[in-house]
């Protein structure tokens, strides 16, 4: 049993406590889903369970926490590790050694278990997570879903009674996410392991949970209960629930299966929405011709050819490791084609110097930390502004900026649009993953690039902020900018883009308007689309508009 009694915690130098007078009771064998807005304290709550908070974060804590009878504030995290297994948001950051089997025994070696025990437990966890075939592989050759399962296996070797996961599927493609969640469900059902996980994309997880904990943030009391009940009270809703709520279905359907029974009663008259296309005369912004690239002999891109016109809003999708990021790195000139050519606004990336390319292209990489180095969020933006004016072509840069310098100094509009204005003076690396993600976005967008490349922009970002981001990108597109997203987030794609390109094993598998692509895909389809299996309905709005 896990209990929190009047727990209040503030990070060092925070203005207000992130957890305020928190009371909570989690029974053995529960499958608990923790949800809440980005920065509401989900990760903090999870880190309290094994003592990482406060031992590795400092700050002030009060109240009583008990996890299986132990007090994580008094114990060291190393003592808690046998009781609570914690899997981080980014599995790579918790691997210590480089092969799967060595990683699995690492924790046990540190707990000085006997060889016989270690041998037995390794076999057990390999089977529990169905990763026996990976045992001799090097970790860096694994796919995202495989890595995540190895990370889970490596904490299970200590036989914890509680398994805690911080957004375990945020970096995974839909298929890999499914694998991980099924594995968790099995552990929970077969072994009675208590599973506590946080997640933003409820559509993926909500059907597995038997309890939902909603952290409203800002010191408000939490909402706790069975998913159907909690979902009635909160506004963080996956599309299916949004639809169910709008149509007053009771009980709310958590799965497509449950919703299917309800839709036969609906009378819908599809209202054909004209596909947004750019006129044929629009200049081409990005032209990729027969692009080949290989990492150490391992082919990552195999003859990719595509054209993207000015003002298009395109999503690149595909499995983990299908070549999305490699393609993006070519578009910004970080990688150069081994064969073929890449032209961005008529700059050949093999000839044009990098400074000239980044005047035009803004690239936000997958890992936001890579971009953050200044002392405050505001300085981060100011740095981008300053360096863009200092690069060759100063006059042009100044002229094409739509805002006066004062405007930027007084009230950074980007920070407002992305909902991080309150953090303008905070140290970027102290922010939550979702907040850091948006700071990185802001830092790049501050340079007002003509072509915006976003690699997994919605990691750790909640529904409302996702909508804010889409609105911002829409308005940028309205100014004639070209936007490319690489993402696994099918709901984001359904709501925002015009065109989807699916990569598979380094080749373009599908390239077409979003409705066409989604309606003919099982994996890369939005929840609403899966429900209706009709390319008229991708989003909740599509359905509501067609109701007569």
């Amino acid at each position: 049993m896990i209990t929190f009694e009047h727990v209040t915690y503030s990070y060092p130098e925070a203005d207000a406590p992130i957890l305020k007078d928190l009371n909570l009771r989690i029974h053995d064998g529960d499958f608990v889903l923790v949800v809440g807005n980005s920065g509401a304290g989900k990760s903090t709550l999870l880190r309290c369970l094994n003592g990482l908070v406060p031992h590795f974060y400092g700050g002030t804590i009060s109240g009583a926490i008990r996890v299986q009878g132990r007090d994580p504030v008094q114990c060291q995290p190393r003592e808690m590790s046998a009781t609570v297994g914690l899997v981080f948001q980014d599995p790579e950051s918790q691997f210590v050694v480089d092969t799967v089997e060595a990683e699995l025994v690492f924790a046990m070696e540190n707990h000085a278990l006997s060889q016989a025990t270690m041998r037995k437990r390794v076999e057990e966890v390999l089977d529990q997570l169905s990763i026996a075939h990976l045992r001799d592989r090097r970790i860096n050759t694994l796919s995202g879903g495989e890595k995540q399962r190895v990370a889970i296996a490596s904490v299970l070797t200590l036989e914890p009674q509680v398994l805690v996961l911080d957004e375990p599927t945020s970096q995974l493609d839909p298929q890999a996410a499914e694998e991980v969640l099924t594995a968790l469900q099995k552990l929970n059902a077969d072994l009675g392991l208590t599973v506590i996980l946080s997640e933003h994309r409820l559509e993926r997880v909500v059907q597995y949970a038997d309890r939902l904990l909603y952290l409203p943030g800002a010191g408000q009391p939490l909402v706790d209960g069975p998913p159907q009940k909690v979902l009635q009270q909160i506004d963080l809703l996956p599309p299916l629930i949004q639809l169910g709520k709008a149509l007053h279905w009771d009980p709310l359907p958590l799965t497509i299966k449950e919703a299917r029974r309800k839709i036969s009663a609906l009378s819908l008259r599809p209202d054909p929405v004209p596909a947004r296309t750019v006129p044929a005369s629009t200049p081409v912004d990005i032209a990729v011709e027969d692009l080949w690239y290989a990492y150490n002999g391992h082919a990552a891109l195999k003859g990719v050819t595509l054209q993207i016109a000015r003002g298009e809003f395109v999503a690149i999708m595909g499995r983990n490791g299908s070549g999305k990021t490699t393609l993006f790195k070519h578009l910004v000139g970080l990688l150069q084609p081994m064969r073929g050519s890449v032209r961005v606004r008529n700059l050949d990336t093999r000839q044009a110097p990098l400074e000239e390319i980044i005047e035009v292209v803004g690239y936000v990489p997958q890992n936001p930390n890579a971009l953050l180095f200044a002392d405050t969020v505001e300085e981060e933006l100011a740095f981008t502004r300053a360096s863009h004016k200092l690069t060759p072509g100063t006059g042009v840069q100044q002229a094409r900026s739509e805002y006066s310098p004062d405007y930027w100094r007084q009230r950074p509009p980007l920070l407002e649009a992305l909902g991080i204005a309150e953090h303008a003076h905070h140290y970027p690396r102290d922010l939550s993953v979702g907040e850091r993600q948006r700071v990185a976005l802001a830092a790049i967008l501050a340079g007002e690039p003509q072509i915006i490349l976003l690699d997994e922009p919605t990691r750790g970002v909640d529904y409302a902020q996702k909508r804010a981001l889409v609105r911002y990108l829409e308005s940028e597109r309205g100014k004639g900018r070209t936007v490319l997203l690489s993402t696994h987030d099918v709901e984001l794609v359904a709501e925002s883009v015009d065109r989807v390109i699916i990569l598979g094993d380094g080749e373009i598998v599908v390239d077409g308007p979003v409705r066409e692509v989604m309606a003919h895909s099982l994996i890369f389809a939005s929840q609403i689309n899966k429900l209706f299996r009709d390319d008229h309905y991708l989003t909740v709005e599509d359905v509501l508009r067609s109701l007569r």
Partner: protein
Amino acid sequence: MKTARLLDKLILLTASLIGVVAFFYPFFSPALPQGPTQSAAHAQDAPLMTMVIIVLCLGAVLATLGTGEMNSKMVAILGVLTATNAVIRAVPGPAGFSFVFVLPVLCGYAYGGTLGFLLGALSILASALIGAGIGPWLPYQMFATGWVGLTSSWLPKLSQHSRLEAIMLGAWGLVWGFLFGVVMNIWFWPYVFQAQQTEIYWRPGMGLREALQHYAVFYTLTSFWWDVGRAVGNALLIWLFGAAVLKLLRRFQRRFHFIVAP
């Protein structure tokens, strides 16, 4: 907790006393082998002295583990900073100009005397092992650099006045630039005697006043100008990088210590 803190103070005090004795016992030694060069200096006892100071350093780490100043995470910081400082020492600077004192000063100031002493002593040891060279001077350098860190914790805490703080620390680096030379020369000075320059050397039986006079002349002639380089270098480096490094050090300190409110 309280006893641990006392034990820590005791170990530091013992270490420093042993250091002082190690530097000064030759003056009281009955049959000191004096020669025209420093080759005889501490030829017999330096290995022992090195062992003693290493054991004392370990003792200080273990003793402080129970106090608030040191925990497993601070030991990790000590390790990282020691390694960094050892590598930094390999960067050659003009005329005695060396980066090696900057971190002990800043860490001693921010993290307290034990960590400062350990960082100073251990980083000299590590850098000797990775190429700066091992010789009878090693334990003396360890003590002297350790004292740089230890004494830096005595400075008043001025974190609210960043300008004043930078000036103070820079000036402190300047002072230690000379003081380090003054302290370090003693390890071999009593062993050297050249008949043509009697006024700068020591002879057994010499009075304190005369010895000090001779030492002052010796220091001014042989090390002063060299130490100017080091002192100015220290001050410049601390003025340039001190604020940024302190900010980082304090950030870690905030993260690695927490308060349990009632």
